[in-house]
């Protein structure tokens, strides 16, 4: 792409300009905070780093655990494709074995053909179920003090209802705090509640955009109970220097632990990082399957010739 047509360039320029203008219209941090307070959306609070004593206590009570999942697909055009799903549960207690669950599927093996979106949706659901199962095993085998899950807790409630109910029961019975960590916030609850004070461009802005730049490092907004996500408590937190907040869900029944979880998340997040606790990065890196590994495994088990057949032509394109 050596040359860009004039027309093309013009269009990009125009859109970029519009986006910039929109951004300029966003009310400042103070104004946003005021709107949020006036509309009783929630309360701004300051998290504190846990002291060594607190950490020692958590360790004594079972430490922390984390569950994450990953999904890879290899092959060509649907349905010539193989899905590999993996869920992993680890504990900060080194002596505990990791809990690893996996599932490998291909639409070619289904009795009847279904549409690609449906199949993909199904895979997503299966992954949530796999993760929930890993979480259940973590709770029963590790008995941690805190269990971090990757993504919103609502996702589990929707995608893996029965497993999630089991998890909840065990957690409540054993007083294990469950927290879902959301890196990419997609909700837009705040803008809905304060929209009267917002310029038209921001009436439907996502929560992360509203809060971006409105909080200090370590500060979090605890959303008023019942405002959204029924059965859960949600807080948005700026846990690192990165101005984009992350989301944290906990069970409504465990609302007394909100502050504790906020502090723990803040303690475990690298200051220069993107806001996700290092602990979740560790789980994420452990569970992720690299493409090279995938390919090696598939080639190994399927035979290179067969693997070659399902590969799309575009992959054989010269670079």
């Amino acid at each position: 792409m050596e040359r860009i047509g004039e027309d093309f360039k013009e269009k990009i320029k125009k859109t970029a300009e519009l986006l910039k203008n929109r951004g300029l219209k966003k009310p400042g941090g103070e104004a946003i905070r005021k709107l949020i307070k006036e509309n009783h959306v929630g309360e701004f609070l300051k998290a504190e780093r846990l002291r060594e004593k607190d950490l020692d206590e958590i360790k004594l009570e079972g430490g922390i655990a984390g569950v994450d999942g990953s999904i890879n697909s290899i092959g060509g055009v649907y349905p010539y494709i193989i899905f590999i799903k993996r869920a992993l549960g680890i504990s900060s207690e080194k002596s505990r074995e990791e809990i690893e669950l996996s599932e490998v599927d291909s639409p070619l093996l289904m009795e009847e053909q279904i549409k690609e979106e449906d199949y993909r949706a199904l895979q997503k659901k299966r992954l949530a179920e796999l993760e929930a199962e890993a979480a259940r095993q973590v709770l029963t085998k590790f008995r941690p003090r805190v269990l971090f899950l990757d993504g919103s807790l609502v996702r589990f409630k929707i995608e893996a209802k029965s497993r999630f109910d089991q998890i909840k029961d065990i957690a409540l019975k054993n007083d294990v705090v469950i927290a879902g960590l959301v890196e990419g916030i997609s909700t837009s609850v705040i803008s809905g509640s304060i929209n009267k004070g917002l310029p038209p461009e921001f009436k439907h802005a996502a929560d992360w955009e509203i809060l971006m730049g409105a909080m200090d490092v370590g500060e979090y907004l605890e959303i008023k109970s019942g405002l959204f996500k029924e059965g859960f408590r949600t807080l948005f937190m700026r846990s690192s220097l990165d101005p984009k907040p992350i989301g944290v869900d906990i069970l409504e029944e465990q609302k007394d632990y909100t502050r504790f979880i906020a502090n723990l998340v803040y303690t475990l997040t690298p200051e220069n990082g993107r806001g996700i606790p290092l602990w979740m990065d560790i789980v994420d890196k452990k569970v992720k399957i690299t493409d090279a590994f995938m390919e090696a495994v598939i080639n190994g088990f399927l035979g290179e010739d067969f693997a070659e057949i399902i590969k799309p032509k575009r992959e054989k394109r010269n670079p």
Partner: protein
Amino acid sequence: MNVVGLTTSHEVYIASKERKFRINELIIIDDPNQGPVIGEVSETFSYNRYIPFSLNHDFFDAKVVESLKRLGYSIDEEEINVAKVKLMTETTYPIVTGSKARIPDFFEVKDILVRGSKEDGLVLGEIKHTEETAQTMGEELKGLFYILNKGKTEKTKSVPFILDLRSFQQYPHIGIFGGSGSGKSFGMRVIMEELMRKRIPSIILDPHYEMDFSTSSDLGERPDFSDCYQKFQIGEEIGVEFSALTTRDLLDLLSAVKPLTEAMSSAVEILFKRGDTYASFSSRVEDLCEALEMGKAKLDKMLALEGIKEIEKEKYRRLRELMEEYSNIPLPSVQGISWRLRRLYYSGIFSHDINPVIRALKSGKLSVIQGPIWLLQVFATYILSSLYRKRRDYKDGELKGEKNFEYFPPFVVATDEAHNFAPKGYDAPSKGIIKEIAQEGRKYGVFLVLATQRPTLLDETVTAQLNTKIIFRTVRGNDISTLMEETDLSSEEAKRLPYLPSGDAFVSTPLFGRTIAIRVRYPYSMSPHLKNPFDELIEKSNQEMEEYYELIKKELPIYESNLLRVAKNISSQNLKVVMEVNALKNLLEEMVKKGKIKKEESPFGSFYTEA
């Protein structure tokens, strides 16, 4: 430990979570198809995927890592160790990825590590990073010597590095390279000790006066070297036999004092006659000098003079003849020769011969030749040529079946600062003989051990002939590139050269066919120069204090009012000491400070008394 990643038939990567790798370790890879393959670690890495090297996001935060540790999760344990392993011999096919790798048992790698027995070889040190392999080694090779490790001496736990003496026949010469403080001198000392233990006739030129083996290092058990070596000072115990000198030798000797001009050289050539003794040659030079100073006219006048003694007349006649004979030699040249000759004479060099060295060599001893560097170089030329000739004549005679040559043993020639003896680019008297030994010494069983801190300045022909090279820490870039050209040192190893700890060295030898990293053993003896000059000062002053204390002890207690009498007493009793009141007072105060005596007050003034 497993083979990971892309493999080739000469290089693989292995990774391990539990074990850290060290450079130069030997590793065995059990390839399922090709059997066990031996390799050597050439580079090591360690990687922790949770502590990424990233400047713009998720930068390492020590506080968070510490918090996780507090919770029981230590991120350090997630470290992955990776080693690049070079295979000893190329395999037919690339190594299978995933093959198991392990630390070899001694018997599996014996041939790679040990060539020769401790009885028939020079035990120079330990092969680095072989502790694990050494555990399965036979008892006869274990704990042969001491190693200096982090300031402490301890018995070696590794595989010994043995340089087989028999291999000298094939690979005769050794080079030792390294900057100051690199352990080069220790290396030389260890080689000398080993030669003495094996009773190999050797000669070492010692410009630094450091080759003494009587001071023992701090090791408990040690062999006694006292009858294994002899020290010779040029001019004191050994020298040159003037009548055996050739014109060339004499020219070298004279120019060692100060370089000769061309006129002087040709004057020497004219004046020196084969078979001259020192007396005959020097009187010829002196007389000519006198004759030229007087001049023809004055000489004729003196000869014509009436009433002088016949003996004097005889002298003038002789001078006159000399003048006739050497009329074309200018006076300054003769004067130049004259003072150089005198300086040589006063060094004592012409009053001795090299027979003591020959006797020492024949009895299998190490001869340490000491002298000032200006003399040592020329003397080295003379003595090495003489000894080499003797050995060559004997061997050639033996070949030709002639029995009339006296037996002369094979021997080793060693020197530090070898670049002075065989410099590159310009001529030095000793260069010729060292080059000759380097090139054909093998035939006659004459071997070189040359040490230098500047390989770049050493004559190339000589460097090329040094088959075994022991390379200590080297910092200079051009020296490193010289060494790389001359050895099979890899670029990775060359990169490590400036950072080698003192005493560590690479040995490049055709005998092993690869570069071996060694740590030189701790010597049994110590250089007399190793005492710190500041310790020496303190020791010296303590010693003096002790001597003075002995002197004044008898006079104690000493009243301040009485100092004059005491000073006189001390001076009168000891011829060597002249003590006056102020000096005595200072001395007494000094002793009080050091706690040797104490000062007390009394009604009669203060006095000094025993502590």
